[in-house]
């Protein structure tokens, strides 16, 4: 085991730091019909911000409401049934943002179809659309073998977890993450790779994702970097 931990990687893993510069687009909606209409019109980057990039926001989504639309349905529209539908919606089930948009539109359209009224938000609780510019900076932290990799996971910020798990899926255009890709191409380890790709990342917050990843490494490779937090 020890030998495998020290085996140098062909390519070291360079961690990336990542932050957003949010860009409000100056558009807001006050009821569910307006939201449906806007979802058909807004750019992909707006959809991406509210469904995925909000993980890096000042107040990231909670377990109950993993995206901004679900939270708005619960808090502003006070419609628990709709909030449940939007919470269990997972954009990572789709291949691209066009499919994600269509799925969201379908949910809202079907929901509105059966309602005798249009749910409205109170004044001050409108939904304000945003998109974002992304800044990615190569960290000074890198890993040349599995042991260094595991130790580094405890040092890098949660923004790195976001970048290597979430941004990776759209960048690599495959439902995989940078970490499992690096392990697979440098060390094989198919069971660990499969387990990492099975992490329910849309459900967990970034801290939980990190702890789950550390837990899997511990499970498959033993105690090479100490217990997870």
């Amino acid at each position, binding site marked *: 085991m020890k030998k495998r931990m020290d085996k140098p990687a062909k390519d070291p893993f360079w961690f990336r730091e990542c*932050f957003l510069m949010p860009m*409000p*687009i100056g558009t807001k909606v006050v009821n569910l019909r307006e939201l449906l209409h806007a979802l058909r019109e807004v750019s992909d980057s707006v959809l991406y911000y509210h469904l995925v990039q909000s993980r890096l926001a*000042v*107040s990231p989504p909670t377990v109950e409401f993993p995206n901004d639309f679900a939270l708005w349905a619960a808090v502003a529209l006070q419609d628990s049934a709709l909030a449940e539908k939007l919470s269990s919606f997972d954009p990572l089930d789709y291949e691209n943002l066009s499919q994600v948009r269509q799925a969201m539109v379908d949910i809202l359209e079907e929901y509105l179809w059966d309602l005798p009224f249009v749910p409205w938000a109170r004044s001050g609780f409108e939904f304000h659309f945003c998109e974002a*510019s*992304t800044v990615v900076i190569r960290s*000074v932290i890198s890993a040349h073998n599995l042991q260094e990799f595991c130790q580094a996971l405890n040092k890098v910020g949660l923004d790195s977890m976001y970048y290597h798990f979430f941004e990776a899926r759209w960048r690599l255009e495959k439902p995989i993450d940078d970490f499992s890709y690096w392990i697979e191409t440098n060390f094989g380890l198919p069971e660990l790779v499969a387990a990492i790709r099975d992490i329910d990342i849309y459900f967990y917050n970034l801290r939980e994702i990190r702890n789950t990843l550390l837990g899997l490494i511990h499970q498959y490779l033993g105690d090479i970097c100490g217990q997870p937090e």
Partner: protein
Amino acid sequence: MVSLNDYEPIVGPEVIGQLQRLAEVVARRRFVHINSTRTGGGVAEILNRAVPLLNQLDIKTQWEVIQGDPFFFEITKAMHNALQGHKVHFTEAMFNHYREVNLENARLATWEADFVLLHDPQPAYMIEELRPRAKHWVWRCHIDVSRPNLQVWRFLREAVSQFDASVFSMSQFAQNLPHPQYLIRPSIDPLSEKNRELTPQEIKAVLNRLGIERDKPIVLQVSRFDSFKDPVGVIQAFRMVRRHAPCKLILAGGEATDDPEGPRIFAEVQEAARGEPDIQILLLPADAHHEVNALQRAADVIVQKSTREGFGLTVTEAMWKGKPVIGGAVGGIVLQLQDYNTGFRVYSPEGCAFRIRYLLHRPGLAKRMGQLARESVRNHFLITRNIRDYLTLMILLDKQGSRLIEL
């Protein structure tokens, strides 16, 4: 002079490293800030520290302050209120005078720049005269313009539309404008007199000077005595708490001298507190930063029961001191306080009273909440993050149309 390295023990070397990496991209560019005052108010507080720090990062930064007569500042005060939704009627003479003062200031300007960040509405029309003087013009709006008075906004929009970008503090303040809009949250300086660490002796000395005994838990609200800060609601909440838990209330702040309702509100506060020895009302001068710092550090629970708020930097300051904060669920307070996590949001004096009791009865939870609040400020609301956003903004403007910066 405070140096960038002084922030490293507070924010960590990674953050300082990020600033240096970003600054390398726009090194030696000329960056001009323009506002209307060098002292007083949150903008001046931040610029006082941000300008030297940007220069340390090799960004050639200068800070220009526009001059005006008393009538000009009356107009801009009215403009400020109108943009925050007050009913104010503007005459053509007021608009004309505002424009003239802007043009006079523009004619006196000698700077040249790559980037100009113009703060708030006061100097906005300078762009009409000075557009060729800088490559990129950005309007930085620090105030709540979520429901602006239409007459004033129409007038201002004519100038704002000529800028290359606008920056707001909250997404709900963004407007329909023909250029990119960015979000930059306000920030506090952890090394300023209002926020630096104090020794127990320093805190004690301030309490002695102000005649405050620490014989009971202290509930504190620091804010101007104006109706939007709801000091009377805080007293109502305190009276409800007192039936269940011993504590004292301190209301500290300045009188709202520019608010015609100020004296009336202050009289109402005194009336509401009459006959209650455990309520202390402190009228502090605007520069009592050291005293405010000590009061916040001495408090057990800090309240900011606003009914209307732009961002609420007093909440940020209290959170930075590791205190549990209860805030009115308005404006930027909603962003800062997450229930059961970094604080409590409330909607009524009853809600405020309930949360004060909750925290006084659970000191362990209150302490944990304060720790989470401090970490939230460390991650999101310190001046280093503000500098990072300024640098990012410059890079994005330079790479027009780009949404991704990779360094």
